[in-house]
């Protein structure tokens, strides 16, 4: 690889990410570090994928990230929506996930009981 290639990859990666964010109305990011996984993040991400597939929400994507450090609130998820503040949910489980999909992702009403931060 040459230096120009690295630049090209960066430009392409930036575009891809931007495109993905444009295509998607909502991006859900699940924290998949050890703390998150131990607290049940795998089940949460699976439930998101299932619920989204079941409802055929083609404009919602689910991705993973590492840990932020807020171990006591795991599993943590973040909901990114164009032009809106980022909503952070903590202490998630499968049942709460279903509610978040139904009420927030589909209806646009964040489930305030589970919200730990809006930024």
């Amino acid at each position: 690889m040459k230096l120009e290639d690295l630049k090209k990859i960066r430009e392409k990666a930036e575009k891809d990410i931007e495109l993905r964010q444009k295509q998607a109305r909502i991006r859900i990011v699940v924290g998949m570090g050890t703390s998150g996984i131990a607290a049940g993040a795998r089940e949460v991400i699976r439930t998101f994928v299932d619920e989204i597939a079941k409802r055929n929400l083609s404009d919602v994507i689910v991705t993973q990230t590492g840990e932020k450090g807020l171990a006591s609130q795991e599993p943590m998820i973040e909901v990114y929506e164009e032009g809106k503040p980022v909503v952070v949910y903590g202490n998630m489980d499968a049942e709460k996930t279903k509610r978040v999909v139904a009420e927030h992702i589909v209806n646009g009403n964040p489930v305030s009981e589970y919200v730990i931060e809006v930024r």
Partner: protein
Amino acid sequence: MNMVRSHVLISIDAGTIMAGARAVEEALVKEIASQGLAEEIAVLETGSIGITGRGVVVVVYPEGIYYAGVTPNDVPELVEEHLLKGRPLKRLMLAEAPKRYVIKREKTGLLKEQPRVVLRNSGIINPESIDEYIAAQGYEAIAKALTSMTPEEVISEVKSSGLSGRGGASFPTGLKWEFARKAPDPEKYIICNADEGEPGTFKDRLILEGDPHKLIEGMLIAGYAVGAQKGFVYIRGEYTLSTERMEKAITEAKAYGLLGAHILDSDFSFDIFIMKGAGAYVCGEETALIESLEGRRGHPRNKPPYPVTEGLWGKPTIVNNVETLANIPEIIKNGATWFKAYGTEKCPGTKVYTILGHVATPGLIETEMGTTLRDIIYEYGGGIKEGKKFKGALVGGAAGAFLGPDMLDVQMDFVNLKEYAAVLGSGAILVMNEDASIVEMLKSVLHFFKHESCGHCVPCRLGTAQLVEIVDRLAAHEGKKEDLDKLLKISKVMRDTSFCPLGQSLYLPISSALKYFKDEILSHVKQAAS
């Protein structure tokens, strides 16, 4: 993926079902199909939208228009007007859509803004995608180093940044690199010490799992600077996910030619290998780690010679902690001056801490060097749980120090902590409330050391056994008055005569516990029968 241009959501809950939501839903599906829109418009069920007593509620996205009191008879008009012609049906529209994002903002300390240098990408990017790392300016620092800096210039940049080792000993990183660079042997190695074993800390794990490419980049820069060809990441055995993510990152970097021969078309070639530890606490000590890497039992070596001149297989070797290496790409990319804007004058940069114990929000934070213990506990940790009083904190893990209330306002950096400086390394802060028992804490620390002592040298082998005996006696309220002096004396002898840091470090928790909590420990001495 089929492109749905519109979503029609129908609220299905007890109230709307009573009002005939199912019939409306059926009519919607039928009407949409008969208008030939089934491919582009999806009808979805949702839970309660939060509008009650208004009959059947339907929302059309992307416009976000709410309709209430919808009956099956309204459906053909609704579909034709709104979905086909794009004109919202005013007569059914809800005048005021429910307010969105009315959320109570709970202040959780750990989400407080933090200056993140080391953890910049952790919890933000997908750690399993090299493209995301590159999009976050990843591998730009190594590109900068390879194309516009000599190895000496890289070292001098790291030196002037003032970065010191984040593993505990706080040795200046640039200086360490310079020693290795100047060592005459042309074969050199870079080791990343990822054997994070101090009880209660997991800061390195966050970097390994959340941003593995950053570590690869840091090792590449270190390799270029000192003239090494190979690097090893020695990962704690229990860190399965870290190992998996590092392996994936290495494979990806190799596929992109960022590891291997002639990186970015330069003369620099470098490769990284992973080695898993097997759970010995002492292997976090650099020479024991090297022994273990070479395939032997993890016994520390005599120093000097230091690894920078005689390390892995007798070759000059750099052993750097994960957090130290994770600072490197940011320093090279942004320059030493940028880095020095963080932290204190003598200790620039940030520090990652694990906060645990009796705090409201345990977890991990990154904050500037020089932040006080009070700020860490009360600002970031959310204060003491259940409104109780702060008693003390065990800072630095098992080999750390008990700090009492008068240490709350001391700036935490390698200079101001003086004799307690070593505790910054692991960054574990175990907070205790008024109900915690110091003797019980000390007991658990001493038992841990007895378990981990390898038995190689006498002071540590016998010392840890003696200390455990004493502390068990105190814990059972059967202590003798001279026990306190004995604790101090034995640990002092261990500090001065033990072969390796394992035996040497026990003096710190014991002396600090006796300094701050002597009265409480004395209360465990058996009262003479009167």
